[in-house]
């Protein structure tokens, strides 16, 4: 039982991070109807930024996260302005191609700046361990859970109550209407990319704390894509729930089934994709997603 709960808790922490990355996808999907393939690379950059601020500059955790967020805001703004603004009004495919290019470029930049080797900063995060009865929550997971819950709550509040959140939801529905009431759509895009960048970078810091950073870390973006599909493409609530589901299932499956496999492991990496296939077969529109409104 303790083993099971331990797996569930760690899975939950992992799932919250997946959810964060997935939210990045969802925000871009909502505003430009395109998958941002580079979201995983944002995460990787986030991991390296975490390393830079926590280890190289030796800043405390909160300051590192704030600094990384500041860098992410600038990065998101620049990326939108330089690469995606010229594509406004172009087909969705053009935008997806651009994000693929962007992902490759970001990987190149990361290799240039931080070098290709593996970096870890386990020790840099504070070691608060929460012991509840028999099992304990590892500090990285705990920080992950706290930070991702904070970010998710902040985002939900932004979309629900803030004026700019309302404008973003409206832009997702009908750009022309939004322009006709005097909202500048391009600035909505910029903000969307900034937010996507911020959630990517924050989840990168958390993930980096758990498993260290290297360029191939960006593959986690593909895992988050499974979360997005399961959650129903354009629902933030769905992404959160789907993130937790996949995180917990992956961890539990790996914990119990990996020892039984002849190869001795690796299920955790395959599991999300098995879920993608199952979801696409039985519920092609995902679990939650906005319902298409049809009046009869």
């Amino acid at each position, binding site marked *: 039982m303790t083993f099971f709960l331990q797996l569930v808790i760690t899975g939950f922490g992992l799932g919250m991070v997946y959810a964060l990355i997935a939210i990045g996808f969802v925000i871009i999907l909502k505003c430009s109807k395109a998958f941002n393939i580079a979201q995983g690379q944002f995460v990787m950059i986030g991991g390296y930024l975490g390393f830079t601020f926590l280890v190289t500059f030796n800043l405390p955790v909160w300051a590192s996260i704030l600094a990384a967020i500041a860098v992410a805001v600038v990065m998101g703004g620049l990326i939108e302005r330089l690469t995606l603004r010229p594509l406004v*009004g172009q087909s969705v495919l053009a935008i997806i191609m651009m994000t693929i290019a962007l992902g490759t470029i970001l990987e190149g930049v990361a290799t240039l700046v931080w070098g290709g080797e593996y970096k870890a900063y386990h020790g840099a995060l504070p070691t608060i361990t929460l012991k509840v009865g028999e099992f304990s929550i590892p500090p990285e997971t705990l920080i992950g859970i706290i930070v991702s819950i904070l970010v998710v709550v902040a985002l939900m509040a932004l979309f629900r109550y803030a*004026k700019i959140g*309302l*404008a973003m*939801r*409206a832009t997702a*529905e*009908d*750009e*022309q*209407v*939004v*322009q*006709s*009431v*005097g*909202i*500048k*759509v391009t600035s909505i895009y910029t903000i969307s990319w900034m937010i996507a960048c911020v959630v990517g970078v924050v989840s990168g810091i958390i993930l980096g704390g758990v498993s260290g950073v290297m360029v191939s870390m960006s593959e986690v973006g593909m895992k988050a894509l499974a979360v997005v599909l399961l959650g129903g493409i354009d629902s933030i609530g769905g992404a959160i729930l789907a993130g937790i589901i996949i995180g917990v299932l992956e961890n539990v499956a790996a914990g119990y089934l990996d020892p039984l496999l002849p190869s001795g492991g690796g299920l955790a990496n395959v599991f999300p994709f098995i879920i993608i296939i199952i979801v696409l077969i039985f519920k092609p529109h995902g679990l939650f997603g*906005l319902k298409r*409104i049809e*009046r009869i």
Partner: protein
Amino acid sequence: MLQVNNIEVAYMSVIRVLHGVSLTVDDGKIVALIGANGGGKTTTLKSISGLLKTEEGEITSGNIIFNNHRIDKYHPESIAGLGISQVMEGRRVLEHLSVEENLNIGAYRRNDRAGIKSDLDMVFNYFPKLKDFRRRTSGYLSGGEQQMLVIGRAMMARPKLMLLDEPSLGLAPLFVHEIFKIIKKINAEQKVAILLVEQNVRAAFGIADYGYVMENGRIVLDGPADKLRDNEDVKEFYLGLSTVGSQKSFRDIKHYRRRKRWLS
């Protein structure tokens, strides 16, 4: 207030749809723009509101003056900021947002909370149904309610000029009558000038002060609405009447005589 001077509009730099259109809307007046399908009415509205630029259209010559600003090169959001709200054709509600959120989007550029709140009440006053449904997802409203909602949304910006594109589209005749009554009321009470594009000529000239008839991208006839209503050609081609208001019988139609006098 609004002067459109001899504009020519081309889509994708190739397809010219307006060939020199001029019209004027004075303060607090209702001006109707009527004409057959594909005549360029909607394009005229989009040139004024700037939305043309989002559809690869361009004003290639002429200009548009609104309260001493030359707006034909402005972006749609700045034109909206100057006080022009367009209600687009086909009830473009933001489907997944609630009724109240739709209305709040209309007031996006304003920062006076008290004013927005009192305007919300004003809109609910004109359209009491919207108040009952304020928390509902707007995509599930009926067609007439959606039309009310988009007009209400345009009013939330406190515009000086409202561009209404076919508010009667797809509504029951009784409902058309009601919507037009409310439009007239809004115009009289809120002192908003209205440029109305309509296929329902009888309803449009019923509330308008001045009218323009458009065909094939040109204004072919204009005048005070009551004069236009009595114009024989308008009667014949848009109101479906022949002499002295009698109902027309298809038996009497001699095709060679059905010539529009303003052509040729």
